[in-house]
């Protein structure tokens, strides 16, 4: 089997497993919705900067919770089985793609619900949506690898948070800036720099994950 078909099979399996149980999906969606609601009840009205920051904080924690599961859920037997049939690159790419899909779905739902509950005018809605998509992709690329590392080390949630925060903060700074630009409705050419750097970091993170994951996998 070549890499692409392997990835396709693994991705199909992830989605099928998720579709059957719907546990993670429903759990995460409910998590996001209830967090948004809690924030609404405690803030009621927010100034734009807080609105933006709050949204990303909600997404950040939801993403950590969602993606932390991606390796911890797998049983030892199943991992051994993957080890025999697929290459490590295929596994990490499949996981990253699956997490990207999951995060985009989650972020979109969160954004829609958030903007219904909290009224706030966003100047440039397509650009804001692009920022959300880019954010979802960044979260999944970084957290997938970190969750693989954390799952090898005692599997606890605190470790996942400690390891991932310093790595995600630079990305988060850029994303928040980009989405703030979108909220203020600034000219799009202002944001090109941020988008470029974000894409570059994501590319670097994916390449490094591909290079490092085989070492992590071999055990």
């Amino acid at each position, binding site marked *: 089997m070549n890499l692409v078909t392997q990835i396709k099979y693994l991705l199909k399996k992830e989605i099928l497993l998720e579709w059957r149980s719907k546990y993670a999906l429903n759990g995460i969606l409910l998590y996001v919705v209830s967090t948004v609601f809690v924030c609404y009840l405690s803030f009621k009205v927010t100034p734009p900067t807080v609105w933006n920051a709050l949204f990303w904080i909600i997404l950040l924690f939801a993403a950590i919770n969602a993606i932390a599961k991606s390796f911890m859920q797998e049983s030892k037997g199943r991992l051994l089985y993957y080890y025999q049939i697929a290459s490590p690159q295929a596994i990490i790419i499949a996981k990253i793609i699956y997490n990207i899909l999951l995060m985009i779905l989650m972020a979109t739902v969160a954004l829609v619900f958030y903007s219904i509950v909290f009224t706030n005018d966003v100047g440039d809605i397509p650009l804001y949506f692009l920022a959300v998509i880019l954010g979802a992709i960044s979260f999944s690329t970084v957290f997938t*690898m*970190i969750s693989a*590392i954390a799952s*090898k*080390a*005692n599997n*606890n949630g605190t*470790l996942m948070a*400690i*390891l991932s*925060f*310093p*790595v995600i*903060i*630079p*990305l988060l*700074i*850029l994303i928040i*800036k980009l989405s703030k630009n979108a909220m203020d409705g600034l000219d799009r050419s202002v944001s090109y*720099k*941020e988008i470029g*750097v974000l894409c570059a*970091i994501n590319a*670097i*993170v994916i390449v*490094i*994950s591909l290079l*490092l994951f085989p*070492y*992590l996998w071999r*055990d």
Partner: protein
Amino acid sequence: MMYKSWWKILASVLVLYTVVGGLLINVPTLPILHESIRNLYFHVPMWFSMIVIYTVSVVYSIKYLNSSNENHDLVAVESVNVGLIFGFVGLTSGMIWAKFTWGDYWPNDPKLNSAAIATLMYLAYVVLRSSIDEEQKRAKISAIYNIFAYPVMVVLLFVLPRLTDSLHPGNGGNPGFGTYDLDSNMRLVFYPAVIGWILISVWLMTIRYRIRILENKNNQIN
């Protein structure tokens, strides 16, 4: 190399020279900074040493993944330990300098924030190591995290501050020290200071590394 002493003597001479030269050689007279511009000779080399020693750590982590040689892992850990010391010293010295020139211990400056986050990253590395008991597994997983985090740290320290306004020279429209006030007199002290402190940081790392090696030998005999 590690056991040679010529570079240790060179490091001492350079550092001692910068103490004398840094205090005595004329500096440009600038408002706000006044004499405190001399801090440049002592505060900035801390960052250079920190970055160099973290780079050494990553190089040895990569070497470890290829060789599974335990000693390479020891170099990587001890480099991080020394780098953390330099990071903390750099942060606190910067905070003191900032208080008297910019008015706040923690002015909202991207370089400061970046440096603090980079320090957090390596603290996380230390926590990760302490969470795994099995030695080879610990070495491998921490090496992987180290390599994974390093490029993000590079982006954090070198790219992000250039995207935003910064109080530090050389960022966001602020002219760099190089353009007008790092005159030839200052270069004469600044570059030796950087080289001297980098060598000192490597020296500290080798001392810690050798202690670790001895400890390991002792444990094996018992």
